[in-house]
């Protein structure tokens, strides 16, 4: 019976009839817009307009590709600088988040501190406050402490991340306490235990936190828009946004090319994340 059901599930003809249209729909809805974006980034404006109607292969593939838009972006619009700013901010935000969250997670899970649960509630409460609701006082605050219009103002406010603690805590908690005890008997202090015993064993959680933080930081828009004023400090999302905002007459090819360039690093990191996810799913399945 079980073998028969398994067989039936594998080659269920009804599901196969459903599958093909679903695959086609997913391709049309999710892949074609990206193809259109990349192809149009490699075309001059007239060609984009000419190729969109009637729809055809020409709409989604660049038959006479030109790098004119990309070159213009880097030479005239200085998008390289914006990419560099975004990279600096994202890397610093990841590093800062790890440096603050990992020791805090250690203290809250491996040391019997008095009032630990109160602390945890106070930290996780801030998780419920959307950051968009704090932008107004945050603007006054970063100006007040002399960080106005600096890259540091973009990432420093968010590195004490309650989400980071939330993601790290289960991994720190799961690690057997006997490991700490054994090290302690051999004379290791908390610094040694944290650095040589706990951290190497929670690498997966640290990697997950790094990737999530990177994507968050790279894709952020509202806070950089408020915190940064000078054009030299613009991050890549702001550079893209300013060419399409209402009232602008965007150069389509250049904007498409910019959108593609701004998205590539995030998608590259996402592919890393995916492999990593599959591995952690497999690991949790073995328990």
């Amino acid at each position, binding site marked *: 019976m*079980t073998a028969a*059901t398994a067989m039936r*599930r594998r080659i*269920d003809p*009804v599901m196969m009839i*459903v*599958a093909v249209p679903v*695959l086609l729909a*997913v*391709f049309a809805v*999710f*892949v*074609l*817009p990206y193809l259109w*974006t990349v192809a149009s980034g490699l075309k001059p404006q007239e060609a984009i*307009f000419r190729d969109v*109607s*009637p*729809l055809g292969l020409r709409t989604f593939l660049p038959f006479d590709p030109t790098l004119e838009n990309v070159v213009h972006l880097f030479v005239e619009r200085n998008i390289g600088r914006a990419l560099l700013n975004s990279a600096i901010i994202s890397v610093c935000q990841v590093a800062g988040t790890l440096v603050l969250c990992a*020791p805090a997670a250690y*203290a*809250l899970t491996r*040391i*019997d501190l*008095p009032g630990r649960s109160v602390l945890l509630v106070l930290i996780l409460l*801030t998780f419920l*406050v*959307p950051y*968009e*609701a*704090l*932008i*107004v006082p945050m*603007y*006054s605050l970063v100006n007040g402490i002399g960080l106005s219009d600096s890259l540091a103002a973009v990432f*420093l406010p968010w590195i*004490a991340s*309650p989400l980071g*603690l939330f993601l790290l805590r289960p991994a720190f908690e799961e690690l057997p306490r006997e490991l700490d005890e054994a090290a*302690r008997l051999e004379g290791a*202090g*908390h*610094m040694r235990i944290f650095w040589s015993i706990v951290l190497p064993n929670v690498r997966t959680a640290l990697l997950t936190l790094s990737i999530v933080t990177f994507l968050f930081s790279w*894709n952020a*828009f*509202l806070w950089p*828009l408020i915190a940064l004023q000078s054009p030299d400090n613009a991050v890549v999302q702001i550079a*893209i*946004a300013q060419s*399409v*905002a*209402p*009232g602008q007459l965007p150069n*389509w090819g250049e904007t*498409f090319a*910019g959108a593609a360039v*701004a998205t590539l690093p*995030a*998608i590259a*990191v996402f592919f890393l994340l995916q492999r990593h996810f599959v591995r952690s799913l497999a690991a949790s399945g073995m328990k």
Partner: protein
Amino acid sequence: MTRKGDIVAGAMFLFPFLAFLLLFQYLPIAMLARDSVHAFTLFNPADKTFVGIDNYVRLFTDPTVRQSFFVTMVFAVALVSLVIPLALALAVFLNSRLPARDVVRTIVLLPTVTSAVVVATMWTFILHPANGLLNAVLGSVGLGPFDFLTSRAEALPSLVLMMLWQQVGFAAVIFLSGLQNIPEDLIDAARVDGANAFERILFVVLPLLGRTTLVVVVIMTVFSLQTFAPAWLMTGGGPLGSTNFLVHHIYVTSFQFQQPGFASAICVGLIAIALAVSGLQMIALRSRWSY
């Protein structure tokens, strides 16, 4: 090691995190409360006038705020009610033993990792009335052309469509993990009892997905509350305020109209809504909905 040593070490490990948390979370919340009872401009923030609860009175009487609140709620409800059935269907598909499901999962997640700015940029062009992709597609089957973003009736539905496109894959992956937690023998038992695939989903799987559904509802509601880039980039909050989401209204009120005091009162309102949504989630997750 002594207990005293433990406490000293713990304090040292916690200090940097707590110092940043106090400075960049609790201090802004306190500043927000203070600012919300003052009137001032960002040009001269030291010159504050105490206005009591005036900003809060205005919060409940100002027609623009009321419209912005209404628009945000409609956006959230529309998104949630469309994303749930579609994401669930997608998750059931991803959970079946069919070829290419890993590829499909990767593809539907792409918009989730694409920034709000790039999604808004792509959709500005997709929805362009003259040269946009969507009107070209609809035109090839004899529909349209539509105005989309410049029409008061179509702008908000267009942004719901875009948000649905961006978030459905993420919601589907959450549903997928919910589906994978359902014991296989429950579904097999229903099959033995003669339930067909549709009945198995409706009467066995769905009731067991209550918690997961709630999580998706809360996440999507919070995402809707946080929406900013589409309004800033695509519509400027218009036409006639029809896409003026709360966060966009806060931004405009504070940084363009130079009324950060009033904007702070709207922020307090936004925090209250966010806390209410999370509170409802906690209450519901503790109730007998669970299995």
